[in-house]
């Protein structure tokens, strides 16, 4: 059974790139997309995804706050933060908010699929 994913990023272009990249793994299915924290929380409540791929900086509500809220409302949903910011403070904040991993965007091709497999325990 495929794993249902919610994409959260304020860039439509990046969401399209990410969606295309995730096609590499047929076990992954993007079920919804949000461009901000508030929308992400609402969509997470509605769809109960297995995984949220979360950007950090998105205007009104940032990724850390959205992660905290989604984890509070849906503890079973796993969250991986994808960001350009290579900052230890953001890493620790993301972990404290309940994110399972923190991946720099340029490292996605090397690390994301492996991380998803490990977090969602998908077997090769």
């Amino acid at each position, binding site marked *: 059974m495929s794993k249902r994913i919610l994409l959260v990023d304020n860039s439509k272009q*990046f969401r399209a790139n990410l969606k295309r*990249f995730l096609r*590499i793994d047929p076990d992954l299915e993007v079920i919804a997309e949000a461009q901000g924290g508030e929308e992400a929380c609402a969509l997470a409540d509605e769809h109960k995804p297995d995984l949220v791929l979360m950007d950090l900086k998105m205007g009104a509500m940032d990724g850390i706050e959205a992660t905290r809220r989604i984890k509070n409302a849906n503890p079973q949903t796993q969250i991986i933060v994808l960001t350009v910011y290579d900052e230890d403070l953001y890493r620790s904040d993301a972990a404290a908010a309940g994110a399972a991993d923190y991946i720099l965007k340029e490292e*996605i091709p090397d690390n994301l699929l492996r991380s998803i497999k490990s977090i969602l325990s998908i077997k090769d």
Partner: protein
Amino acid sequence: MANSQESGKRSLAIIGAAIGLAISILIIVYSYDYAISADPRIIGFWFYLTQKPYRLLQLSVSLFPIGIGYFVGKEHQEKKSLKIVAQENRLLYQQTLEKQEALDQLMHRISRAHEEERKRISRELHDGIAQNLSGIILDVGYLKAVIGEPEAQKHLQELTDLAKETVIDLRRILNDLRPVILDSQGLAPTLGQHVEKFGRETNIEIELKMDLAQRLPPGMEITIFRIVQEALNNVKKYAQAKAVTVAVGLDSDSVGVTIQDDGQGFDLVKGLQDHRGFGLVNMKDRAESIGGTIDVATQPGAGTTIKVTIPLASVGEFDG
């Protein structure tokens, strides 16, 4: 201005001389008139003076009022000129003060505009270029996964490596432009990160003492960060210090920032003229731009202490 003063001076002296001349003529006319009708002794004296050897003396006596008039007029004009010059000097001094104030204000506005511009560029680099590069890396990653041909794989990997290097370069530029965590996390964590990096890169023992219970306005936080950054930069380049302490504290009416090192110190007058002077002037400008003051205490062999005080009253004014 100088020409008109000079001609004014001449004209009053000429008026004085003219009055003197009039008096001289009156003296001559009246004396002759008197000579005709008055006491013969006086007539005798006057005639005595009009004899050939004394004519010059008589003429001098007659013309004496002209000279007096000329000099009195000139003197009066001199005094008047001095008064005008003093008045003009006061005006010029006042104007210079006003211009200096306006220049300071302009510098502060430029400084704030500069910081705003850095913020804007940083945001655009992040939201535009960094995002797009990440997107390109993702698409190349996808192509690598679906294209099996080894030659293509090799080129795509090179493309990925290049794009990743560019993102890393961009990240460094973003951090130089404006510390990424300053706006979201505040001054304390930002300074914490900066001093930690400073210690790691320079092997200088560094301690940060933060005593701030509240966030400061963004304009004040970035200014304090820049001053500490500049001060530590000077420590790294010139101080040859073993240890440095950065302290930020809140008093009842001001925020105090102190950067103290145990390095070789320097002659402050000379220091202001060499390369480190640029950094010191920069710090001063930044402190003043938010209504603060800076005090630099140093001498050769005795380390350096830079103390910046920013009145809390100015907090509300600098929120940009």
